[in-house]
C-alpha cells in the first residue's frame, strides 16, 4: 500500500519530535483517554500536535483552557470519525478533514452508519444491491482520493462519501432559480397566464436563456424503460426529462420526442405556479435504485412521488462501472 511509507515517516517524525521534547511529551500524554488503544492515541496525538499552532493559547504545561478544550474536542471528533464511524454536521466535518490532512491511519476499522445497511425498523434493507454497491464505491473512492491528493490520505473515511449532490448544492442553485422564477412569472403574464394552449417549450427555453443558462433534455424510448408496471400496455412513444443546471424540473411523455418535451416543459412550468420554487435533495428511483437527486419543487406538499429519473448527473464513472 502506498500509505505504508508515508505512515512510517509520519509516526517516526512524531516520536522523534517527542523524544526531543520530553516535557511536551509528558504534557500531551495527560490527554490520553483511559480506553484509547495505542493506535488510536498515536493518531490523535499527531492530530493534536499538528494543530497546536492554530490555537496560540495552547501551551504545554498550561493545564486547561477553553481553546485547549476546543482542540481536544476536535481531535476527538476526528478520532470518533475515523475509528467509530461517527459523522458530524458539515461545518465540523470540513474543519476536521482540513485539520486531519496528512495524518495517515493504517487500515482504519470499517463501520457502517445506518445509511448503508440497517434501516429504521432494524430489518436489513431490502435493497440487496445497495450493499455491494457501497463496497465498490468505497474501493474506488479510496483509490481516487489517494490519486487526487498526493499530500496523503485525509481522515475523511470513504464510507461516508456518497455519489450524489453535495449537501450544499440546493443552496448554491437556489439563487438562480429565484431569478428564473421571476423571469417565468413575467413571461407568463405577458403570455396571458398559464394554460394548456401555450408553447411551453418556448416559454421555458426563453426564460432559462434569459437567465444565461441552458435547458438539458434527455429522451428515452418508452420501451427501453424497465420497471414499469407489468400490466402497462403502451409500449410506444418517448419520455423526456428536463433539467437545468443538473436540477430536475419535470418529465413528460409523448408520441414523439417533441411531444414528450412539450409535456415535460408543461410539467416544469407547473412548478412555477406556486408562490416560490425551492431546490431540494429528494430520493428518486434511478435504474431500479434509490438515489438522491436535486429537484425543483413548489411549496405544496406532494401527494405522489417523482417519476423515475432518466439521467443522473451526479455520478462518477466508477459507480457507472460498478453498477452496470
Amino acid at each position, binding site marked *: 500500500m502506498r500509505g505504508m511509507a508515508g505512515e512510517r515517516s509520519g509516526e517516526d517524525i512524531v516520536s522523534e519530535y517527542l523524544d526531543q521534547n520530553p516535557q511536551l511529551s509528558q504534557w500531551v500524554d495527560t490527554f490520553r*483517554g*483511559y*480506553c484509547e*488503544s*495505542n*493506535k*488510536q492515541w498515536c493518531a490523535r496525538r499527531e492530530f493534536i500536535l499538528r494543530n497546536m499552532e492554530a490555537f496560540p493559547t495552547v501551551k504545554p504545561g498550561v493545564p*486547561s483552557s*477553553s481553546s485547549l*478544550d*476546543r482542540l*481536544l*474536542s*476536535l481531535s*476527538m*471528533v476526528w478520532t*470518533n470519525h475515523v*475509528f*467509530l*464511524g*461517527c*459523522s*458530524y*454536521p458539515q*461545518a*465540523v466535518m470540513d*474543519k476536521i478533514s482540513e485539520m486531519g490532512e496528512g495524518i495517515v491511519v493504517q487500515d482504519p*476499522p470499517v*463501520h*457502517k*452508519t*445506518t*445509511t448503508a*445497511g*440497517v*434501516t*429504521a*425498523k*432494524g*430489518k*436489513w*434493507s*431490502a435493497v*440487496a444491491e445497495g*450493499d455491494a454497491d457501497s463496497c465498490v464505491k468505497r474501493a474506488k473512492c479510496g483509490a481516487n482520493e489517494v490519486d487526487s491528493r498526493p499530500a496523503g490520505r485525509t481522515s475523511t473515511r470513504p464510507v461516508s462519501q456518497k455519489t450524489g449532490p453535495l449537501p450544499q448544492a440546493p443552496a448554491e442553485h437556489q439563487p438562480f432559480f429565484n431569478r428564473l422564477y421571476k423571469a417565468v412569472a413575467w413571461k407568463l403574464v405577458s403570455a396571458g397566464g398559464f394554460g394548456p394552449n401555450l408553447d411551453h417549450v418556448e416559454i421555458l427555453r426563453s426564460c432559462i436563456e434569459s437567465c444565461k443558462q441552458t435547458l438539458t433534455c434527455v429522451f428515452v424510448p418508452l420501451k427501453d424503460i424497465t420497471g*414499469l*408496471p*407489468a*400490466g*402497462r400496455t403502451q409500449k410506444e412513444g418517448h419520455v423526456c426529462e428536463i433539467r437545468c443546471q443538473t436540477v430536475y424540473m419535470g418529465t413528460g*411523455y409523448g408520441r414523439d420526442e417533441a411531444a414528450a418535451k412539450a409535456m415535460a416543459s408543461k410539467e416544469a412550468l407547473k412548478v412555477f405556479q406556486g408562490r416560490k420554487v425551492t431546490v431540494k435533495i429528494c*430520493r428518486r*428511483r434511478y435504474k431500479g435504485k*434509490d438515489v438522491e437527486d436535486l429537484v425543483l419543487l413548489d411549496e405544496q*406538499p406532494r*401527494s*405522489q*412521488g*417523482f*417519476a423515475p429519473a432518466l439521467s443522473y448527473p451526479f455520478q462518477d464513472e466508477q459507480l457507472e462501472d460498478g453498477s452496470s
Partner: protein
Amino acid sequence: MGVPAFFRWLSRKYPSIIVHCVEEKGKECNGVRIPVDTTKPNPNEVEFDNLYLDMNGIIHPCTHPEDKPAPKNEDEMMVAIFEYIDRLFNIVRPRRVLYMAIDGVAPRAKMNQQRSRRFRASKEGVELVEEKQRMREEIIQRGGYLPPEEMKERFDSNCITPGTEFMDNLAQCLRYYVADRLSNDPGWKNVVVFLSDASVPGEGEHKIMDFIRRQRAQPNHDPNTHHCLCGADADLIMLGLATHEPNFTIIREEFKPNKPRPCALCNQLGHDIKDCQGTAREKQGEHDEFADTMPASEQEFIFIRLCVLREYLAKELTMASLPFPFDFERSIDDWVFMCFFVGNDFLPHLPSLEIREGAIDRLVNIYKDVVHKTGGYLTQNGYVNLERVEMIMQAVGVAEDNIFKKRKEDDEHFKRRNKEKRKRMKAEQQGPAYLTTGQFAPQALGGRHRPEPVHNARHQAYDMRMQGREQHNKDAAQSLKAMMRNGGNSSAGPSDSKDSRGMKRKAEDSDSEPEPEDNVRLWEEGWKQRYYKTKFDVDVSDEDFRRKVVQSYVEGLCWVLRYYYQGCASWKWYFPFHYAPFASDFKDIKEMFSDFEKDTKPFKPLEQLMGVFPAASGNFLPATWRNLMSSPDSSIIDFYPDDFAIDLNGKKYAWQGVALLPFVDERRLRSALADVYPDLTLEEVKRNSLGSDLLFLGKSHPLFDFIRELYRVETQEGTEIPAELCHGIQGTLNLDDDPILPDKPVKSPIPMLRDISQNYSVGVKFKDPQYADGFVFKAVLLSGAKIPSPVLKPGDWENRNREPWRPRLGFNPNRQQAHLDQSGFRALGHSMNRNRGGGGQYSNAPPPGNYHQGNYRPPHSGGHQPFQHSRQNSFQGAPPSFQPQFPRQQQQQQPYRGGGHGWDRAMQTQHSAYHQNANRERGGAGQGGGSGGGGGSGGSYQHHYNQSRDDWHDRRDNRGQHHQGYSSGRGYPAPPPSRRYNWN
C-alpha cells in the same frame, strides 16, 4: 435490565411464579362511571401493604402507546397516567404505602445506555419518516391506495428525561392527583403516599430499593410487610430478590410477544411497512362498525411472586455435603450476581453468555461444581469475592470455544429448519387454482354422505362458469377503483397485485434476506484475535489493553452488585468500552479492584440532559446550551455526532446492536457548561436543582395531625416520624416551601380537571433514614419474618402423604373454588349446546376462545343435553371412558374462567389430577355404583360427581374462617375454576 429475553426465560422455567391479576372493573350506570370501592378486600385474595410504582414504566406507554391512538396533547397524557395509576391501585389495593418514583438523574454508568437509547430514538425517528416517504412514493406509483398523510407533530419521547419541562409539569400534575385521591377516594384514606420526582437523583427502581433498604435496616420495620412493585424491567426481579423480604410481588403488564402492530403507512394490521401493498382497507365487521377498534384486548396484568421464585431457586441451588454450611439467602445473592454476567444496563454481556442459550443454567451448573473448590460464596451483602469469581469465569472460559461452535451450528440448523418450514407453508397454502362447487364439489372418501346422482348438470355448470366470470369482474373493478382514488395520474398503471407470478417471485426474494457480515466468526479458530482486532482495533498481543478492558469489567461487576445491594457506590464510574472481554480473559483479577472513589456527586438535571441528548433534541435546552451541541467552535462538539454506526455484533436487528457512540468527558462537559450557566433563567435554575422526596397523606391518617402541627409551629429543622403513627416507617420530615395543606384549595394544572376546593390532604418533604458512612446493609432475612406457605409440590410429597397434591394457583392456598349445582349445569348445557352444536361430543379439541363463534359445524342431530349424551351412548353399548368426558366439563366451565393465559396450565393440572382421582376410585373404594373396569356410564358419573361434591362441601366448612372475606358470595368475581376435580 437490558435483557428482554430474561423475563421470558424466567417465566418459562419457573411457570408458577406467575399469577394472573383479578381486576374488578368499574361499572357504568346511565353513563355515569361508578368507581370501584378499593376499601373492599382485594379480589386477588391477598392483601398488599406497599405498592411501589416505577413511574417511567407507566409514563412511556401512556405518552406514546403502541396499541392505541396516541394522546393528542400533554393534558391527555397526564390523564392517561392518572387512569393507569388508578387501575393499578385498584388491582393491588395497598393498605399502607404508595410510593411513586420517577427516574431522576442516573449514575454515570447508566448514562451511557440512556445516551445510546436517545441517540437511537432520534435517528430511528428520522429514518422512519424517510422510509415512509420512500415507500409511499413507490406504492402510489404502483397504483396502490394510501390514506392521506396526517401532519401530526411527533411526540419526542426523549422529553421523558429529568430536567425537561415535561417532567416538571408531570411532577406538578402528580401532586394534584395525589391530593385529589387522598381527599376524595376512600381507598386512599389510610395510605401514605411518597412521591420521588425527577428532581431527586437516582433511577426510579433504585430509589424504591433505597427506601426499602433503609426502612428494613431500622428497628421499627415490620418484617412481614407485603411489598408489591410495579414495572416491567427484568431487573426488578433481581432487586426484589436482593431485598430478602419474604413477601415481595412484582406486578407488570402481561407479556405478549409479537403483538401485531399496524403498518406505519396504511394503518392496517397484518404486514410491515416493508411489505405494504397499498390495498384497500378491509371492512371490519359487516358494516365496518369495528373500524376503529383495535383487535387486541386491553392489556392485562400479572403478578410475579418472588416467594415462589425463591422456592424454585431453593430447589435448584440447595447443595448437600458442602465444606461449609449452606445458606440459602447467600446462594440467592450469588444467583443474582451470576445473572449480571448475562446482561444488565451497565455492562455489555459476555460474548459467550447468551440467555437464549441457557447461559444462566450453565452458570448455575458451573457454580455448583466450583463451589466445592471455592470454599464459600461469591458475594456477601453486595461485595464481590473476586478470587472465587475468577474460578467461575475460568470454568466458563474453558467452555467458550465450544459455546461459539455450538451457537453457529444451532443457528444454521435453525435457518435450515425455517427455510423448510416456509417452503412447506407455501406448499400448503397453494390450494388448487379452481374448485368445482355445488353437487360437483369434491367429497372426502368414506364420508357419511353417499354420492348422489347428479341433477341438472348443465345448469350447474353454467352457474359455476358465471361465478368465475363474476370474480374476474370484481378483481378488475377493484384495481380500477384503486386507480381512480389516486387521481388517475399517468404514472399509476393498472394494479398488478393479482398477478400470481409476480407475487411468488417477491416472496422468494424475501426468503433470502441478506445476512449481516460477521468478520469475527467466533466459531472459527483464531476468534479471540479477530474479536479484539475488529471490536477494539488492537492486536491480541496487546496484553495491557486487554487487561484494561478486563479490569474495567471487573470494576463494573463490583459496581453493579453494590448498586443493587447497597446503593450507588460511585456516581462517576462507568464502563468505558463498547464491548465485553471473554470469560477466559479473567485471569488474576483478585487485585484488580479495591474500592470506588468516595463522595462523588450526581450530575445536575440539565447537565445530564447535555450528556444524554443528541443535538436533534436540543430544543429541550436553553439556547446557549443547545449551541454547544452543534457549533464547530464548541469545546464539546465531539459528544454530538449527527450520525453514528451501529455494530450488529452478530445480531439481526439494529436495536440489538451496539451503538458506537463516543463517551462523554465529564471534565470538559463541566467546564464548557461553566460558561453558559449564567444564561439560565430563574425557571431553569429551579428545574436544574436537586429536589426532595415528598410525603402526602389524608385527614384520617394518624400522622396527619402531627404534620399539621409541624406546619403550624413552622419548625425549621427536620423532624423524625414517630414510628408508631405510621406502621413503623421512619424518616425525616421537612416543611415544603409550596406545600399542599388541608383546607387550602389545590389548583388543577390540567384544564379539563377541576380544582380541589375541599382539600383534606397534607404534603411534606421526606428524607429516608440516614446511616453512618460505611454502614453495610445486611442481605439477610429479618428476625420475625414469616416465610409464606409453599406453593410448589415438595419433592417427597408422595412418600409422606396419601393425599394427592393440590396445585396452588393463586395467592390464597385455601382459596374458594367456584362450583355450579346441578341446575346450573343443566341451564348451561342447554344454552351452550344450542350454540355450539354437536361437533363431536367426544372431541378432544379445546374449546374455542369465544364460545359463540360459529366456526363449528352445525348440529347434525339436534340438541342434546350433555348428560343425556353419554347415557344414550352407553345404551348403545359403546362404553365411554372418563377421559373423553373430561373436555366437555371443561367447556361448561368456560364462562367462569378468569384470565386467558392460565387456561392451558389449569387444564393440564386438572387433567392429571382428575386422572388420579379416577384411578384411585377405580382401584380402591368402589363406592360409585357401576364404576368398574373400563369406565362407568354417564349416569354413574353424575352420581359420583354429586357425592364427591358433598364431601368437598364438608371439607370446606371445616376449614378456618380466615378466608371468609374472599368468598364469592360477596359480589367479587368468582376465581378461576381451579382444582374443580379434587374433591376427595
